């Protein structure tokens, strides 16, 4: 591809495929590529993927990467050997957690802290909750601790002092001393990462950051230098868990902020696609082999959660796109439980051995086996099963065809018959249908959890499936949950790579205040908000990437005196307040009113006469990236296809629908022109997924290549 113009490239590395999405900002054109991942050296697939669509890397201005390297390291316990230096009396905070246990019933759990007890060293120092330094830090002890940890072979160091959120003077002094002595840049300081009250959550986040630092730095350096060697001299940016992007330097310092980098990129893309289609309220549904991830976007904004836990007791406290995960993927195993009830998941056959129909040794039925037996998946063209090959118009991109052979229909039938149909006394087709209904109910529950149960009206929301498997199920989900529609994007399989290209730059900062509202000085608070916002804005601008505009937000975490859970209160007068803006205008009355508005909306009743407390403030600065013309996703090839209400099916095949075998037309996604209308039941096949339009639903294609599936009763 001869690329005149400014190229921005998104790269998403998954377990199976590495996806590349190239956007020419000058011409507006788009290219995509999909190559097999190279887990031994991810940079290889990263480069080869780009090189299949770009000849000269010197023409590339920006590369944005959504990475799962931190996630995988956390899941697989592959962090670096790390030491912890902390306040005397508190080295076990990391191991004692919040005094919880892994499962409610059974009492047979265990826990391994990421820093073992013999590498957690104490130094004399103490700061009180009001910020008073009761005891200065003994810096000689800090030196001794550093030497001991280095002697023990630690690669990274974490520093955490009690009440550092209230006053970090001791912690800063110790940090300076450690950084002077530690032989590399891998020093994680707790209040620099999370200046927020709650000691376990803070030290856990800092320790996880520390164990990730050597690994993530080496990974990013490797990719960066490989790109440089090929002539790339633009900016390399990394997607954060909050859905914004940051510079590679920030990512090296704060790798813990990339824990949900990959999934966040997918949610961002979904938001952009849906917004362009005029649908600001979306539930994203990412169905992979083992899990089903949902996330809610309301009025074009994703919801963020303050913290998450990667497994038991590994808490990361940093704003992340709120993703609810349940164990329901294509590989989820169906079984009849001890009490005789059909269950699907959470155990999964994964991609190896995978579903029974892969013929790799698994004999237990999975969701994919049920889809296959019911005719929803084409056994000869097993797409949407373990992702496809080559999505996108760059047809020359060759992935290893993982799904080269055809699927074993008989193996699927036998597994369902033995494990589900016979124990339940059902016919095998009815049993397969039951597996789908239970899996769909489970997925519907996850959608209810993020929508209805948080007070959102489901009829406003549209489901957007991405990943390989979602589009087979979302039709049923809109009926179950009462959603408005399903919007299947043109390339569900490369959504995350696209999200990298459209993601904004974003920085968040949380600071604990912990004072009664009536004791706060509004002018002083306003000054602090502005200072922090200015600093974050500088950081956004320093990334070297062009932004169209800056947006700034201030939120307060507030509660009634006596409560421990806060509500997040937006201060609207600070929205888009500019550098050095109107800091004098904020009043306590405005904050009171903002709290009342938020509390009333959340719980439905205010509590009269009880004082209010400000726990934290949060400043968010977003650098908006230039907008992206979604019409460039409407296929170039497809442009030639004239829109028609009644496209010709590729084939007709029997599919089990509502308890009977029905002849269902099968369409090729590539040959659907703009304005095509498909009445359910219908199947649509494309390189990276299969879409099922349920009976009673109707699908139509728009100018951006999306397939919108709605109820057929209007």
């Amino acid at each position, binding site marked *: 591809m001869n690329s005149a113009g400014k190229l921005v490239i998104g790269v998403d590395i998954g377990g199976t495929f590495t996806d590349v999405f190239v956007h020419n900002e000058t011409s507006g054109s788009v290219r995509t590529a999909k190559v097999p991942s190279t887990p031994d050296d991810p940079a290889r697939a990263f480069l080869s993927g780009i090189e299949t669509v770009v000849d000269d890397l010197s023409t590339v201005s920006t590369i944005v990467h959504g990475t799962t390297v931190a996630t995988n390291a956390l899941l697989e316990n592959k962090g670096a050997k790390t030491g912890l230096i902390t306040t005397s009396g*508190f080295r076990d*905070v990391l191991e004692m957690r919040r005094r919880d*246990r892994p499962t409610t019933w059974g009492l047979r759990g265990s826990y391994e802290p990421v820093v073992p007890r013999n590498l957690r060293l104490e130094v004399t120092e103490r700061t009180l909750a009001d910020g008073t330094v009761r005891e200065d830090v003994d810096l000689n002890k800090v030196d001794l601790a550093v030497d001991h940890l280095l002697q023990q072979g630690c690669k990274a160091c974490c520093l955490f002092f009690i009440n550092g959120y209230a006053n970090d003077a001791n912690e800063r002094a110790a940090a300076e001393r450690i950084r002077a002595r530690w032989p590399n840049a891998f020093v994680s300081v707790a209040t620099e990462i999370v200046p927020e009250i709650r000691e376990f959550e803070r030290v856990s986040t800092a320790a996880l950051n520390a164990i990730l630092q050597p690994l993530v730095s080496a990974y990013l350096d490797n990719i960066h230098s490989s790109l440089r060697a090929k002539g790339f001299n633009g900016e390399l940016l990394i997607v954060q868990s909050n859905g914004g992007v940051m510079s590679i330097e920030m990512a090296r310092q704060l790798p813990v902020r990339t824990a949900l980098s990959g999934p966040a990129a997918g949610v961002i893309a979904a938001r952009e696609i849906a917004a362009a289609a005029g649908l600001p309220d979306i539930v994203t549904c990412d169905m992979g082999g083992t899990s089903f991830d949902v996330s809610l976007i309301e009025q074009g904004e994703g919801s963020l959660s303050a913290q998450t836990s990667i497994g038991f007791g590994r808490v990361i406290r940093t704003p992340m796109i709120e993703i609810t995960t349940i164990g329901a993927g294509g590989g989820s195993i169906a079984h009849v439980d001890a009490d005789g*009830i059909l269950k699907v998941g959470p155990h999964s056959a994964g991609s190896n051995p995978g579903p029974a129909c892969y013929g790799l040794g698994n004999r237990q039925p999975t969701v994919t086996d049920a889809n296959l037996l019911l005719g929803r998946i084409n056994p000869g063209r097993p797409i949407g099963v373990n992702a496809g090959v080559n999505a996108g118009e760059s047809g020359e991109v060759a992935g290893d065809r993982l799904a080269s052979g055809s699927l074993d229909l008989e193996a699927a039938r036998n597994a369902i018959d033995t494990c589900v149909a016979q124990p339940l006394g059902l016919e095998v087709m009815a049993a397969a249908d*039951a597996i789908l209904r239970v899996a769909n109910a489970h997925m519907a529950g996850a959608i209810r959890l993020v929508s209805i149960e948080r007070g959102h009206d489901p009829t406003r929301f549209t489901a957007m499936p991405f990943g390989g498997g979602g589009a087979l199920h979302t039709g049923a989900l809109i009926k179950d949950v009462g959603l408005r529609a399903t919007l299947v994007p043109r390339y569900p399989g490369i959504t995350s790579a696209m999200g990298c290209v459209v993601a904004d730059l974003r920085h968040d900062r949380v600071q604990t205040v912990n004072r009664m509202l009536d004791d706060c000085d509004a002018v002083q608070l306003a000054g602090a908000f502005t200072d922090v916002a200015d600093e974050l804005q500088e950081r956004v601008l320093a990334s070297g990437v062009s932004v169209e505009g800056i947006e700034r937000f201030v939120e307060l975490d507030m509660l009634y005196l006596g409560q*421990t859970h806060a509500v997040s209160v937006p201060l609207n007068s600070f929205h888009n307040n500019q550098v050095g803006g109107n800091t004098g205008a904020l009043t306590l009355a405005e904050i009171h009113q903002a709290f009342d508005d938020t509390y009333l909306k959340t*719980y439905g009743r205010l509590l009269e006469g009880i004082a209010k407390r400000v726990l934290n403030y949060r400043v968010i600065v977003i650098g908006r990236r230039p907008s992206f013309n979604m019409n460039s996703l409407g296929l170039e090839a497809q442009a030639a296809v004239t829109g028609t209400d009644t496209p010709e099916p590729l084939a007709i095949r029997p599919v089990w629908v509502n308890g009977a075998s029905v002849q269902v037309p099968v369409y090729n996604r590539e040959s659907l022109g703009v304005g095509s209308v498909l009445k359910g039941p219908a199947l649509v096949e494309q390189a990276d997924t299969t879409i099922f339009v349920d009976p009673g639903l109707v699908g139509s294609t728009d100018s951006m290549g999306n397939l919108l599936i709605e109820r057929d009763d209007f």
Partner: protein
Amino acid sequence: MIKTDSIVDPVTLAVLRGRLEQIADEMDATLFRSAFNPIIAEAHDASHGLYDAVSGDTLVQGKSGLPIFVGVMAFAVRAVIKKAADNGGPQQGDTWIFNDPYDGGTHLSDFRLVRPVFRSSSKASQQLASNSETTSADEASADVFCYLASVGHWHDVGGNVPGNYNPAATECFQEGMLIPPVRLFRHGELQQDIVDILSANSRLPNSLYGDLNGQINALDLGERRLHELLDEYGDEIVAAALIELRERAANLMQARISALPNGTVSSEDYLDNDGIIDEPLKVALDLTVKNDRLVMDFSRSSPACAGPVNISYSTTIAACYVALKHVFEDVPANAGVLEPVEFIVPEDSLLAVTAPKPVGGYTETILRLIDVVFLAISQLEPARATACAYGTINALALNGHRANGQRWVMFSFFGGGHGAHANGDGLNHGNAPISTATIPPLEILEAAYPVMFRQWSLRPDSGGDGKYRGGLGAVYEIELLEEFAQGFLFGERGKYPPQGVVAGGSAACNAFSYEQDDGIATPPMVSKLTGMALRKGQAVKLETPGGGGYGDPAERPQELRERDAALGYVNDNASTNPSAIAGKPEQSL
């Protein structure tokens, strides 16, 4: 497996089970988020569920509530059903409130709200009624589909000591206000008079008011969700599903019991004392397996005592339910679990007291009940056995007045080690088996109260030895920063340590000490204390038990012993005796 007369197909049943659990879970979440006191908001000392319209039996229970309430709420709903029947029957728009520990309660701190959910068609509830063991179907309840209930532990309900853990109580009247089932809402109208009475009897009326509102929020939401579900699936289908789920739980429980060898095994454990008389109290179980049924006979247990470690019969049943759920964790949480279980609890024992015997320290006794069940099961099926956990909640209250005259009450429960089991060492610093509570962050406690923790650490050598070692308890040392404070402690395991199983060793005992002008003091009742006076700079120190060990210590692999030593979990020279205050010299007197 599928009953032929069932009108619920297996798929709908699976879907409905999930939907019903979601309703109870969401009620839990609503209260946790909006509650005022940290015992509910952080420690999740609360529970929600759906209960049978006639018998009050547990139909569905939230997954995140306090496990002990799972069993006891059925008795609470039953108490309301009875009271309503005596007062003209349940009425639409009524919500009952009470905390009577002898009538379906636990202790006075736990306030229950119970609300009947009415449906226009009475067919389904009659169907449910005909399948219940209770046959006293009241005509007036014909339109009640089921009951929704919410229970939460309030911060202060009056009585002699703030926080209501009064180790010196000899009557419930010293433990707090006692409210029988009364109507908080009549025909949808909040009875402000009731709220005023409750508020006037608490040291922390704002906290009470906030928690009460949170519980109302949870019931409102649960009722809304339940109506939506019933409208969607139809009352008959949901009612049939509830019956079916209960039968399946009972069947599975029977299958699990059948896998145990027939016969009788016996176990005993002891409470240190009742806080009044320093003599041990015995909790004894003779557990008999008869094919697919269990008999749990507590006849050999001590008679009722003067102090507050008695429990009511309903609490005993609830504790056994929790213990059995830990042993057979795959049996679903509904009344079916107890169907194949017979209980023998003598009326004069400390496990079945009536008013006004004090019950404030009920947590200690039910933890001992769980221990004797674990000890008995370990003799029947070692592979399923778990050694005893730390077994005391260590309820500590510190309170005083700030320089500005404002009253403060810090009240918290503390953690300890879990027992070892057939697959490995016990968990260090876990929560009690009766709860899923998390501990408040020490930074939150320090910000809210005039205290400073000197240490918050694991307690070496506190886990029982064995092929698998018990989990470690903790050391918490808390210094007072204000001029003066009073303290109360309610703990156990000061004399009788958590036991190991299958030849595993015992854990370290609970130890409590506090600084006084003339040196280090320990309570006369070991882990129970009232009226402790502290001055600025003095500290209290809790050293909590670990868990018991599993298996013969001689079988512990050498590399695990070396690892224990390297990590400081076990120190060769240390004893497991309570150690003295180890504060910094300049801070100790």
